[in-house]
């Protein structure tokens, strides 16, 4: 099952983002297709948040994001992020 089809995984990733980025929101405040980064995003994460999340993903899932282009692509939304964590 692809990550984007797994609600449990997506909730886990939302909680990881909330914890790592120190956000004062709940997991229900992040939509699966919401843009995560930039001024158009409801939660408005920035590049430092991206680095924080990438290191947390490496620690928790053993997945390494090697360059900023991939990072931006992977972390576009919760659905893309979940598919990166579990592609199949």
């Amino acid at each position, binding site marked *: 099952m692809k990550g984007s089809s797994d609600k449990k995984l997506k909730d886990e990733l939302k909680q990881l983002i909330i914890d790592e980025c120190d956000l004062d929101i709940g997991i229900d405040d992040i939509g699966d297709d919401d843009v995560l980064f930039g001024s158009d995003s409801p939660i408005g994460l920035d590049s*430092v948040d991206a680095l924080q999340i990438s290191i947390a993903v490496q620690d928790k899932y053993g997945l390494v994001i090697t360059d900023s282009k991939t990072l931006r692509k992977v972390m576009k939304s919760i659905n893309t992020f979940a598919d990166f964590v579990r592609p199949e």
Partner: protein
Amino acid sequence: MYVHSSSAFICDPVDTIDGMKEDLKKYTDYYFRRINKFIMLSLMGVHQCIHASPVSPSAAVYLATENGNLGDTENVLEQIYRKNSFPKPFNFINTMSNTASFYVAQSLKTLGRSITLSSKNVSFERALELAKTDFELNHITEALVGGVDEAVASLDERCAKNHESCHNIRMVEGSCWLRLKPEKDGAAGEIIDVRTFAEMKAAARWIEGAAGSPVTLAFGIFTTPADRIEWRHALPGAEEFDYLSGYGYYDTAAALAISAFFLRFSGRSLVHANMTADGQHIVTVCKSY
């Protein structure tokens, strides 16, 4: 320089800052993200000091600390050396010495100078000296001077240096601040002088003429038992303010002595005697109205 308000925020050592985050909401609507315990302590203390009253846009911030962002420095070292990993960016950024005073300045919306300074054993006294100089040179018109440190576990070691027992002193997290202005109107008191002496005899001679009356005497943790006797001789009849037993100890506890004095006592002078790491005597004289 005149003290317009003060705060003495202390608490028992804590592992998480969640409780403090909730408490901080009483003082400001701003949500502080990516902060650690040291920054949170700084914010709690300074916001308790200003009591939600506006601060001048050019107000200066002098944050005195012995250890700085101790917890995050430990986290970063743990991540690098124990886990053999990259440090987490938030932890790494927060180890930079001026991060806390940046957050303080940002939350107060002040664009004046913001400085973090440390000077072994007497960081708060040195911050007062710096603020005093800046007032005298007309570089600033308002200052927030704080002494902030996280609780550390080595109180016994500190006391052992002076062959003293620490059984009646508890270690606390602390953040104590003074709001200083050059105007006397509306002030709760004043910082009269901060002086350093190489010899105890010279300090005792000076204080006989410099202390007001009635006088309260307080000692920093490094003041030796022998020196305490000399201070008592120099100021006979002085009431002692044992703030370390009453409130607890943290590494910039001189800020606690002075802030708590202004909160608790009126119409008195305070003489706070402390000792630098190289054995010099540093004396702070204050007066509450």
